[in-house]
């Protein structure tokens, strides 16, 4: 293990322990780690955007003859008009371009790529012929989709058949929340495992190199 690697490990271990110290109570070590993380992230992001976007995708191609890139360049500069209240309205030109563009792309991609295939998959499932188990699952999916949609139908009071179906919908939503919560617990424990494993596997062995 080189001395540079040992320094890296100790810095990472210090910040890991500083962040974990918040679990006991708020303290200066936690605050220090939090502020350094925020500052470092912002600096890294600016540097990366400068290199990967401004230089590689705007400046270099413009020098190579793609002069029309000056238009998106100007639109980008217009965003900074928000810093001066008197001319902040100018930034709306760039924002309008971004919003119009994004809305146009998402309208198609969400409908074509998410809504229609998901609806199709639910409908096809009903006609499945792959045995009793898959037919039962298909019925559960269809009942779940319809009852959940009815739960979110608020134009009519949830009484009678509508009320019963909406209650079934609540059960499906609760099961979904339970699954999400279970997975979230698993995710958080995994992150803890990652840091504990780092401390045990890299930081603790580095003691023998130092002392």
């Amino acid at each position, binding site marked *: 293990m080189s001395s540079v690697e040992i320094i890296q490990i100790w810095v990472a271990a210090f910040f890991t322990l500083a962040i974990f110290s918040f679990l006991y109570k708020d303290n200066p070590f936690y605050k220090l780690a939090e502020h350094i993380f925020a500052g470092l992230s912002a600096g890294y992001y600016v540097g990366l955007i400068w290199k990967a976007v401004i230089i*590689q995708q705007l400046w270099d191609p413009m020098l190579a003859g793609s002069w029309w890139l000056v238009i998106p360049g100007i639109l980008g500069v217009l965003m900074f008009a928000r810093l001066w209240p008197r001319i902040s309205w100018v930034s709306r030109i760039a924002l309008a371009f971004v919003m119009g563009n994004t809305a146009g792309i998402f309208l198609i991609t969400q409908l074509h790529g998410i809504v229609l295939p998901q609806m199709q998959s639910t409908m096809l499932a009903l006609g499945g012929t792959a045995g009793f188990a898959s037919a039962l699952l298909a019925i559960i999916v269809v009942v779940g989709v319809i009852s959940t949609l009815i739960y979110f139908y608020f134009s009519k009071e949830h009484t009678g058949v509508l009320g019963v179906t909406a209650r079934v919908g609540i059960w499906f939503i609760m099961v979904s929340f339970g699954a999400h919560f279970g997975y979230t617990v*698993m995710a958080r424990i995994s992150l803890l495992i990652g840091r504990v*494993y780092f401390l045990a596997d890299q930081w603790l062995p580095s003691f023998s190199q130092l002392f």
Partner: protein
Amino acid sequence: MNFWDKLGTLDRRWIYLLVALSVIFPLIVPMSFKISITPEARQLFEAVDALPDSSVVMLTFDYYPSTVAETEPMATAALHHLFRKDCKVVTMTTIPLGGPSMAERVTRTVARKYNKVYGTDFVNLGYKANWVAVLKGMGTSIEAIYPADNSGTRLSELPLMATVKNYDDVSFIFVVADNDIVQNWVSIVNAQYGTPIGAGVTAVGAPKYYAFVGSGQLTGLLGGMKGAAEYELLADARGLAEKGMGMQSLAHLVIILMVIVGNIAFFAGRWSKKGKVK
């Protein structure tokens, strides 16, 4: 105040300590739990395994450093599987903070074990801002979106990229992500260009993506550290995820126990209050 009331007002730091001990204990006394393979993980493995040798696979590092415990074992196991099959790997990321450097570090570490050469066997495209433009634009021309790789080398100087112009030249996309970008890979790339996609996601996002496996929009799915452990077993590339399953299982048992005890305390406290009122 009886026992159940005291339990209800227990300082939460005792719970933190208990969870921490449940994670540390298996490090001291190794514990092994059987890892069952889910159909979604097997589907993903089989889809990658069925690719012809030397196929071009795009592997995305769409995750932040904060979730490496879950996601990095997936990317590492996928790289072992791909390099062993002699697949050509193109890595990229839509995550600015750490994405490019993690892709560089992980890919080069695994590539070294298989004597793979940068530029010929694998390329790291790095990061570009605005993922909508990136995902859509690569369908027309990867070089238009990434004029240079992560280190600034022009794509025209990399032999691998001479044969990889757009999604038509990519046989499979393996997305490793900790955010909603998977949905956009599906809706923009799979739906419009038809490139098959498999995903490894953090456990938080996994429930949402099972519907995409059901509809055939995702070829397979790995959910969280458990999913990573499954792929490590399937690809015979055992690593952190497989080692972490003992800790994960014990921590889950402790949490389940606490949920049960917490509920008993809640209801017992309520009943004793009702009894006092009567």
